[in-house]
């Protein structure tokens, strides 16, 4: 099981690094979210199986006897998922706002100190037009 999880984590992290290297903010956002999932999976892998290498059963820390996997990593992951979700919401909102205010989601164009003169054929799909909402 651990091997399968390890392979999953590897694939997810690889894809997310590839996405994060892009110059498009949308891809970067997706890469960051995937990385969070990779981290959560790796904690699952870390928590191990309920059977210990010696043959005994792993005891849950609080409940005494019973055949349970350790509940704590699950709680950690739950917390991490919630936080990841909140950050994702913020990131996507910021993306929408950036697109509205600056008319671009490309890092190279964003890095320009002086916004280029609005050219409608460059960003025809963006709502509100380039520079339309600066300082609102």
């Amino acid at each position, binding site marked *: 099981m651990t091997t399968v999880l390890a392979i999953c984590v590897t694939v997810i992290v690889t894809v997310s690094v590839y996405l994060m290297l892009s110059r498009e903010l949308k891809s970067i956002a997706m890469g960051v979210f995937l990385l969070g999932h990779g981290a959560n999976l790796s904690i699952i892998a870390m928590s191990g199986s309920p059977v210990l290498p010696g043959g005994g059963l792993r005891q849950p820390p609080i409940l005494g006897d019973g055949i349970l996997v350790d509940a704590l990593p699950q709680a950690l992951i739950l917390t991490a998922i919630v936080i990841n979700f909140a950050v994702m919401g913020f990131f996507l909102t910021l993306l929408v706002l950036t697109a509205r205010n*600056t008319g671009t989601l490309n890092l190279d164009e964003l890095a320009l100190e002086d916004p280029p003169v609005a050219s409608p054929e460059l960003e025809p799909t963006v709502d509100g037009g380039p520079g339309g909402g600066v300082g609102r």
Partner: protein
Amino acid sequence: MRNDLLGLLVVIPLATAVASVALVRRSRPQRVLGLLSLGSMLVLAVGWLSEIRDGDVLVSQMGAWPAPFGITLVFDSLSGLLLCTGLVVALGCYVHSFSVLEPETERRYFHPLVQLLMVGVNQCFLTGDLFNLFVGFEIMLMASYGLLVIGASRRQMAQAYKYLVLNLIASTVFVISAGLVYGMFGTLNLADLARIVDARVASGEGLPPGFVGVSVMLLFVFGAKGAFFPLWFWLPDTYPTCPVPVAALFSGLLTKVGVYAVARTFPLVFAVGDARDVVTPLLLASAGITMFLGVLGAVSQHSVRRILAVHVISQVGYMVFGIALMTTAGLAGALYYMVQHMVVKSSLFLCCGVMEHHAGSDDLDRLGGLLKRDRFLGIAFFVAAMSLVGLPPLSGFFGKLVLVREGWTDHWWLSVVALLTGVLTLVSMLKIWTRGFWLAPVAAAEPAPAAGSGDLRGAYIGIGFLVAVAVLMGLAAEPIYDIAFHAGEQLTDPSAYIGAVNPRGLAAVPGGGG
């Protein structure tokens, strides 16, 4: 000692944040609420700090679960001193914001975000386990993302992504390393970890393979948040873009939480045994480079905001230097330096805000002759700047004195770098002083634009408060240094900390590998 009320420092700002959201359209009640919240927390924190002057440790076990199983909040000398300073800084910046922040910006949830920032910062300082440190970091960062883009100008948005993405990656690495630590030791409570690690090293059993790797991963995480040498690039671009009170708040609180996390976890757990041989050289090298390159960057800048922002990096180097020494006096010096730096740096940023208000720009070419126009500002800036440089009897002097003297025996070259950095700090501060306050402006000064309410009373109260605290810290260096020294003792010999957090000496989780 038990103290069940420590949670108040997290609950008060949280409740205030929720109440402020309901009042978001009305600024006056929000301000009163915010002041009440920050003020009451400051009173509580100072009261508790005076209770533990002799090196006691206050501990709160949430839900009365014993230490390794429940959530533990710890108020020892290190966290207590930083909590008080953090609240002082927040209070100063908050009062300042009343008169410089545009009403439009203020209505965009400025007050709730500040309170949420304090929730995160306080939780980071108080928490006794690694995972809650992560949660505290995240709360603080979420609030800081919001504050960073408050007003949503093009420049803010373009720069915010650097900060956002770097911090998200760092947080992910934090989660992974917390998971690794749990897999190795079966606990995330710092006191419990310290006990297990010490016992393993003492019994010759050794630490699990990969422990050094986890140490370095955590160093990366805290380094990214604290802007240490290779991971500082986000800071000079992001801080100057936000409104001045926000920049002052960030420079006083955010990077220091990263430094605090290193000071808390590394001497206790992650720089023990083999890990120390790997982590210490990394920290020392990072400290030297951060100090020196940071100040070189500051000298080369030409706008007040950027000079101050790059200086934050340089000063972080001093703190890392003290931590890397891993001696009692070194850690105490780092802590004292951190405390005074938080206050001084924030007050400098606030001064920069008023300078901009007068001259309409923070470009050194456009500033000038401000001493004639605003004597109070000139004096406040001069005192704060000289304190940053480290001239006696101001507070920066004592911090540098302890660090340089402590580092001299083993790492004299770093002490030399520290002194050289001090000289260059003086150069860059004098650059602002002469161009901004002393000489006549090079370019014609524009008439002051309408920023905020135009009533600068709040701004002056904020600056005056922080500068007064900074001067007081210099004059009353002894009692503060005493507390810092207790903190250093508790970090180098954690038995008191472990005993206080884990009083019954409960065994680690069965089967957790401990």
